[in-house]
């Protein structure tokens, strides 16, 4: 089925929307992986004396920030793709 969720006869979402959603989700997933790998590398390669600030609350906050950031990247990607299509 090409279109989903018809509202009052108008098409609410179609295959292009789902394709853009897929690209946005993929980029957001890549952002999560990149940030987590970077964070893990930073923790693993830093000397212990420079990691005194890394407490469990700080790690938890960083993880939540990474989740938020991936969501922002996801929606920003979708916004850019929709903007490019309208140019």
């Amino acid at each position, binding site marked *: *089925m*090409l*279109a989903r969720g018809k509202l009052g*006869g*108008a*098409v*609410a*979402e*179609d*295959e*292009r*929307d789902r*394709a*853009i959603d897929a*690209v946005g989700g993929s980029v957001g997933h890549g952002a999560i992986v990149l940030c987590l790998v970077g964070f893990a590398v930073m923790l693993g390669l830093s000397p212990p004396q420079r990691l005194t600030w890394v407490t469990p609350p700080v790690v938890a906050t960083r993880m939540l920030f990474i989740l938020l950031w991936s969501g922002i990247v996801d929606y920003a990607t979708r916004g850019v*793709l*929709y903007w*490019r*299509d*309208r*140019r």
Partner: protein
Amino acid sequence: MSPTPIRNHIRRLRDARDGLTQEALGAACGVTRQTIIALEAERYAPSLELAFRIARALGVGIDDVFRWEE
């Protein structure tokens, strides 16, 4: 979406059918007007099903609507 090597004549064929609007063509094919806009700007490559639906809505063969151009 990035530019696609699939070119089309949707705009010309639409105009030839008594000024069929993008909205009407989209409704006939089950897609949004924005998708028709993206197709005409050749910024989006349709799925095979959508390509056939567009050709049928325009009353022509699929080869008359779309062509591959490297």
